[in-house]
């Protein structure tokens, strides 16, 4: 057993458990009603449209607050407190959750993250040629997209809708294109979220993007690691608080890094910056999902580590690297 016990195996067990909780949790742990969900502001894509889900993400309350509450600052001269209270509660809850687990919500708990991982495993087992690392140019081109999606689709368009500049369809535009909405509901046998709307041009475009994106994500996940995560608006939201996260990726520089790049190859988000020299520095990048693969695949003792506050949870080592690469070869056949 010890031969197989790796961070990745542990992560898969946690991810599967979290998937069951976030997609089916209302059947056992919480209840059907939104008011009874665990945090109601999760910094990961657990979906409110899933009637059996145990919790839901922070993006849906944020969009609703922009549309129905924050907008009243402009439309009804509402008091600051009344208009901003809900948003402050959401932001505060997200901050506390990030403080506790930081970006591990992505690598360890997000149902959509796990869903993509499963398709990558299927693609590998089907013998599809895996794309491996994306080039720096490609990564640099894709990265800004999520920094557009988060402010525009989650904050600005819903706010403009609430003020009255836009039609209803722009009240929660991110949810309208979110692949987790389709994935989680379909996993519970509810196919109602798969549709093309002909209500008006806005609804039509959003529903078309949602379905195309969902199909594309599945196909890409068969040979590209974490395809949707690269544009996911949860990452910018987490980034706002990542500095306070107790869990973090720390690097203690090593001159071998220049020629090695083992960590970058292992990183499912292609964060090439982790190869840079650093002395006992928190290198948790905005795109990092704290999956731990870079720690597993670093062949040098103590260079990469996961720290929780002052405690080192996991550290890279020659032995660990050997064991991990052996398992990787076996897995990839």
């Amino acid at each position: 057993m010890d031969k197989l016990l790796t961070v990745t195996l542990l992560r898969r067990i946690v991810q599967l458990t979290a998937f069951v909780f976030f997609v089916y949790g209302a059947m056992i742990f919480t209840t059907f009603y939104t008011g009874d969900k665990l945090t109601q502001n999760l910094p990961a894509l657990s979906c409110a449209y899933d009637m059996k889900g145990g919790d839901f993400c922070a993006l849906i309350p944020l969009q609703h607050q922009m549309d129905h509450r924050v907008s009243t600052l402009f439309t009804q001269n509402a008091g600051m407190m009344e208009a901003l209270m809900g948003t402050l509660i959401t932001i505060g809850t997200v901050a506390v959750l990030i403080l506790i687990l930081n970006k591990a919500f992505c690598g360890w708990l997000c149902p959509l993250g796990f869903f993509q991982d499963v398709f990558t495993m299927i693609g590998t087992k089907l013998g599809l040629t895996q794309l491996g690392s994306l080039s720096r140019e490609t990564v640099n081109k894709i990265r800004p997209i999520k920094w557009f999606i988060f402010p525009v689709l989650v904050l600005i368009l819903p706010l403009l809708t609430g003020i009255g500049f836009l039609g209803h369809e722009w009240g929660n535009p991110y949810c309208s294109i979110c692949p987790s909405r389709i994935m989680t509901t379909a996993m519970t046998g509810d196919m109602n979220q798969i549709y093309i709307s002909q209500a008006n041009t806005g609804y039509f475009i959003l529903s078309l993007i949602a379905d195309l994106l969902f199909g594309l994500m599945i196909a890409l996940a068969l040979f590209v690691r974490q395809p949707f995560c690269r544009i996911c608006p949860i990452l910018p939201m987490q980034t706002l608080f990542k500095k306070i996260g107790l869990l973090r990726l720390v690097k203690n520089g090593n001159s071998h890094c220049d020629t090695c790049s083992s960590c970058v190859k292992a990183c499912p988000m292609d964060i090439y910056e982790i190869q840079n020299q650093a002395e006992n520095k928190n290198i948790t990048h905005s795109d990092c999902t704290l999956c731990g693969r870079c720690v597993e695949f670093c062949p040098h003792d103590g260079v990469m580590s996961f720290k929780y506050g002052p405690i080192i949870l996991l550290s890279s080592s020659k032995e660990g690297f050997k064991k991990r690469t052996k398992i990787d070869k076996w897995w990839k056949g």
Partner: protein
Amino acid sequence: MKKTALMLFIAATLWGYGDGAIYWAPHGCDDGKKTASKHGGHGKGESAMFTLMNTEANAHAHLILPDLSEQNLTFKRTTVMLPKPSMGGYYAMVAKGYDTNATFSAMRYLSLQGRPAKVSPTKLTALPKTDLEIIPDPLHREHDRYSASKSYRFLLHFQGKPLINTAVTLETHDTPVQTYTTDQTGAFSITLPNDFKNVQVGRSENKPSEFLLSTQHRDGEHLYKSTLTMPYSLNPNDFWQSQSYGAGAIFIGFLGGLVFYRRTKKGAKNG
């Protein structure tokens, strides 16, 4: 003359609905809508006034708030006006009427916006409110609606215990009465009919309809009759949303990904 004819027509269409049992119906008058919009918390265009249909003078009613506290509702003839909601969550409207050998009850739930009460809605539905009670299991989601073409589960309880093998009827304005029977746990599931007419494109363009569940139970000489009424909305998937086009678009997206795969594979070989 026209007015009398209209009254006669309305009376004729409503006659027999609910089979003599009392039930709640929203009162669409301007007064009710104005009060609702002043109160806030209600949805757009909703009324804060409700009529207790088929009622006799001896009926009384109360409201159970999301925190499970109670508030009396005062009748003005057969209508009640809801008070301004003091908190957000589900409210239960309970009406009871008595005859020498019969007890009538009517239930209705509302989901109103406001500061959440921090009490699980499961407590409100589980709380015994009338002798014979049709209990949503669960209710529709907060700020959501019951929808046509979807199935929903309910429980039937008599004095707090499941009532098995009992008939419950479902009535809507445009679909013939359907009868369901409770199972060994006192549960039954209904599918709301897609019976909306003159549908306009867009959810807010179409008014919700009403469904009525009614049942009765005889305990010795005494008859109990109970109803539950709730609004339900049309299902866009029955009208302007196409699920097959949706599945088609997912397939096209998937094919797009496969084309990309072929290109990268070629690139990998050539490079």
